[in-house]
């Protein structure tokens, strides 16, 4: 018996090892939301990000000069816009005061630098140098001065991983700024698309797409991109709207985290409403 087992093991040990590892992998795949796995992941990427941030800083020195020029130009443009906005702000405050509306536009932002990027066609993520110690929590939106970059996925003490727009696991509610029509936007591995849009919806190439207030993640509309192509779905009933993002994930270096998490209050309210129906 022992000789038989020994023979089988020696003959097929490669396959046994392969099967065992495949089973472990599949088990891990089902346990991704397990708190223990999340803890191990937070520790692993937190430790490693500290090392990669040093290398990334060294590599970025050469790019800083070009980026400074761009930022100076943006700064000048923003200064002019700020001047205009101040003027409009005064008028706006007066009008809002008249309507007794509370001004809710001041959002807390935390600046962060991208320290590493995991690029693949389907699961793009970035690691930023801001973590729990700065109050970052999973679910917070990550933006740049151009628009939405992604959403925080995991945090360690000093670093966080964010799912970018080009990650198939990130699906967000967006709307057409022109006519306020909502839709679900996702990365299909090739393009950023708004799916299942009825053909009767008025979408045109060049329309600006922003995040929707219907989403409990985004407190205010954040620019996402512009409509670049409108395709008919195979069924012929729906359209697929391709969106060209304002921010290119590949080149983003400096980001801001909006320090607001998903609104539990809003979610609970909506869930209660649906339960009572």
């Amino acid at each position, binding site marked *: 018996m022992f000789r038989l087992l020994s023979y089988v093991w020696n003959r097929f040990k*490669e396959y046994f090892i392969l099967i065992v590892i495949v089973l472990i*992998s599949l088990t891990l795949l089902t346990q991704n939301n397990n708190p223990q*796995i999340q803890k191990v992941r937070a520790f692993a990427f937190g430790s*490693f990000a500290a090392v*990669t941030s040093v*290398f990334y800083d060294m590599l970025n020195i050469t790019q800083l000069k070009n980026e400074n020029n761009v930022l100076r130009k943006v700064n000048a443009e923003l200064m002019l816009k700020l001047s205009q906005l101040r003027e409009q702000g005064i008028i706006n405050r007066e009008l809002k005061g008249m309507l007794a509306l509370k001004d809710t536009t001041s959002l807390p932002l935390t600046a962060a630098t991208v320290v590493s990027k995991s690029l693949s066609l389907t*699961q793009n993520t970035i690691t930023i140098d801001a973590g729990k110690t700065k109050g970052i929590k999973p679910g917070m939106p990550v933006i740049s001065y151009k628009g939405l970059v992604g959403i925080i996925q995991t945090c360690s003490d000093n670093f966080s991983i964010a799912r970018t727009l080009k990650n198939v696991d990130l699906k967000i509610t967006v709307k057409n700024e022109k006519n306020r029509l909502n839709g679900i936007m996702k990365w299909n591995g090739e393009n950023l698309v708004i799916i299942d849009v009825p053909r009767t919806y008025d979408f045109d190439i060049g329309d600006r797409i922003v995040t929707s207030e219907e989403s409990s993640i985004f407190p205010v509309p954040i620019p996402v991109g512009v409509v670049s192509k409108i395709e008919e779905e195979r069924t012929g009933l729906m359209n697929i709207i391709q969106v060209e993002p304002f921010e290119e994930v590949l080149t983003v270096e400096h980001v801001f985290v909006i320090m607001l998490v998903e609104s539990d209050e809003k979610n609970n309210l909506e869930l209660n409403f649906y339960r009572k129906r």
Partner: protein
Amino acid sequence: MKLKYFIPLIIFFPVVIIQLTLVPFISIQEVVPDLLLIAVVYFSIAYGQIFGTITGASYGLLFDLISGNLVGSSMLSKTIAGFVAGYFSSETKRDQYLYTYSFTIVVFLSGLIDAVIFSFFSVIDFNTNFLMALFNHALLPSIYTSIISILVVIVPYKRTFLSEER
């Protein structure tokens, strides 16, 4: 204990640092070469199928943990890629596949398998053309990875390094 068991671990850290910091600069339309896969294939041919399978699993798991991927996705794909690359390892075939441009073909084949399995957990979209998805998600990264793997063939010190190990 043989040094060969520690070499993959020592090699992993510089390779993954390059993968996450330098490699994004040479991406073409977000298609990047997979340096970890090249290392897995190299160890698999050099030290055998079991060694390659376990190295693939370890590399995949560590990469999943530090990159934010689904934990287990790279582990599974690289395990199978390492296992397949192991078929090109034997006393008679080793030199043929390790020191010639055949290495790039093995990397391409393993890369294709790695990318197909990895993509399986990421992109299931019935509106996407299957052949086009296969081309974009598996073929292009595999070709790029195999092109970069030519560096392993032309690095002049590899013979000395491996012969000392054996």
